[in-house]
């Protein structure tokens, strides 16, 4: 029992494999047969903020992506640059990308995630949001010093993001985020480089599938369905439609509603 071979095989190989199967392979089996959304598919739904970037910073845009048009190719390049910068600066160590399945803020439960981070759609994070080419590996994060970012699309304008990256305390007076001056080519924070433009593109892309996809386009994307009986009961409250039937009609798309999230 206490010999090398027994410990090597049973404790080392067998128990590890058992855990890998239960905790790794079984969850993975839920996604069997579901295609990973490719960069090309992602680039079929370009957020309007990307067009704005091309329009507002034509020279920087051309220098970064070799074109002045907000093409799908440029969008893919910008997303990739933004994700690379996001990982290189370890943004994910202070900003999470998951709205946990807790909330409902109805006075009986402790929890806050949905109310705070998805007050409009009231949708918590689902597995299909992460089942794409931008999540090798996932960026869930484990510490939340700053706001959650999985629904950051449209929460602020492009200019807000660039000002915030140049000096966070210009937009958020109490922020402890360090400035990222190397996302800009000049010394005044007016000319973003590829990383700056990419970062804004990435932040405006996160969650854009909930706020900007036309219903038909959204339904075309592969979705993952779980057996809901696994989860605690959760009933999303009804969203009151605006006057013209669009629940988001009253929101300024440029993000003037800058409440403290």
């Amino acid at each position, binding site marked *: 029992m206490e010999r090398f071979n027994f*410990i090597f095989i049973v404790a080392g190989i067998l128990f590890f494999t058992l*855990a890998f199967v239960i905790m790794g392979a079984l*969850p*993975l089996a839920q996604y069997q047969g579901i295609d990973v959304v490719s960069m090309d598919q992602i680039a079929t739904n370009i957020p309007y903020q990307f067009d704005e970037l091309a329009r507002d910073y034509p020279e920087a845009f051309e220098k970064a992506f070799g074109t002045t048009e907000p093409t799908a190719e440029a969008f893919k390049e910008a997303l990739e640059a933004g994700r690379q910068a996001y990982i290189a600066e*370890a943004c994910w160590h202070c900003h999470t990308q998951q709205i946990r399945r807790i909330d409902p803020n109805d006075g009986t439960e402790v929890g806050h995630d949905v109310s705070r981070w998805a007050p409009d759609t009231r949708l918590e994070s689902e597995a299909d949001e992460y089942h794409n080419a931008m999540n090798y590996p996932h960026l869930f994060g484990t510490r939340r010093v700053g706001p959650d970012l999985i629904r950051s699309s449209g929460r602020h304008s492009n200019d807000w993001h660039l000002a915030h990256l140049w000096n966070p305390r210009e937009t958020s007076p109490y922020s402890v985020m360090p400035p990222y001056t190397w996302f800009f080519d000049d010394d005044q924070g007016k000319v973003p480089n590829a990383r700056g433009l990419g970062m804004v593109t990435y932040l405006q892309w996160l969650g854009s599938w909930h706020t900007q996809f036309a219903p038909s386009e959204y339904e075309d994307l592969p979705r993952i369905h779980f057996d809901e009986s696994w989860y605690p009961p959760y009933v999303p409250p009804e969203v009151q439609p605006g006057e013209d039937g669009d629940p988001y009609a009253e929101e300024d798309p440029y993000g003037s509603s800058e409440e403290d999230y």
Partner: protein
Amino acid sequence: MTQTATTPLIRPTVVTSRGETRVLVDTTSAKLHFIAAVAWIGVGIVAGLLYSFVFLRLYPHEGIEVLSAGRIRMMHTNLMAYGFLTNAFIGMLHWVVPRLTGEPVLSHALSKLIWIAWNAIVAAAMWGILTGQAQAIEWGETPFWSDHLVVVGVALVVINFTWSIIRSREKSMYVTLWYFTAAFVWTPLVYIMGNYLPQTLVPGTGGAALVGLYIHDLVGLFVTPMGWGLMYFFVPVISRKPIYSHAISLVGFWGLAFFYPLNGVHHFLWSPIPMFAQYGAVISTIAVEIVVTTVVINFVLTMRGEWYRLRESIALRWFMVGMTCYFITCFQCAFQTTLTMQKVIHFTDWVVGHSHLVMFGVFSFWIAGVIEHLWPKLTGREWWSRRLNLWHFWLWTLGVALMFTDLTIIGVVQGLLWDSLRPWEESIRYSEIGWFFRMISGWMILVGFVCLAVNMLMSFVSRQDHVDTVYAGQFPEAAPTGVNG
């Protein structure tokens, strides 16, 4: 002259049998690894301290790209794992394994090569992190290209030491070697699973389940077995008493081996990972904490009647303070992993306090004890100053106590403020006082480190020879006369 289940059979560093003299312990490699470990932890502590400045909006390195806050944060954790802990563990293995098995490692030349290669890998990986080539896997932020090198390095270490264990002619293995054997299997498996699958094959939520396993297994299946192995060796040796119970060490080992690998998903509770995995992780986490607590009890009972030794032996003090921290950690684990607690404390500084208590308060303290015990034996020089060693001990002990208490409190404050749906920045402003005291504890830890480093250096250059304690008669059936711990 056989070893019993509760006492290690300890051979001298050089044995002579049948007229043949064999060098069992490669003391040079052990010494080099401890030197590297202490050098890396110095850099790592400075990185952590710089990161704590960022939270107070004091930017000593504002606008310097390579010292960006996120990058020094990644450098801090990865240096501790791969620079400090790994180097110290390899040094400790050099001292322990050949003396328990009676066989030297595969090759002393390979040991030197491993030292050079491993530290070159760590340096290259740090360069990669600082120049923005990091990988987004917690505890594995080393650039993807360096992962291949790490796998080769780990394989060499495993081969080098497993050779010694396999060739041993002992009838049964002492408990330390069970832990080491298991760790030699687990470490490469864990590293390959965590660094390769989520990066290349498994995106999103499925990858998160694997990363959860990786985060947890790196602590549980590499650091913990190494730590327990060294405790089972050094505590009996220094306190000169056999381990209290062989049965409890069996429970501890097999409980750890079975339950610990199942825990990983508890890092992502309430996430989109399927709930059956989350429930399973919570239950097995509670199970493993119960098991681990029994091991703590084993050591406390081993020390029964010997506590007065803490007055004379600073090494034993390190071990026992680490043990206390371990008990607190385990006790905390068992309830903080519940889904109810996670609603409040997940994502807060509570978790940061917890991880510092484990990685620093437990494992770094045990390594500090090993350094305290071994440095004179490896260099042949007496410690330069006992007073400096005491300063080191008290600064680190009080430093980690302050950091843990402080971060735990502001973790709860943050969680409840978020829950109350107050504006986000309010939680930042209420945290500032806590982040200030964290910086103070960082300073204490840095000064404690300077005490250690200066003392090691001065002992090395001083001329006061170390007189080895002789363990004659302490383990009558196990330890031959003239063998030191």
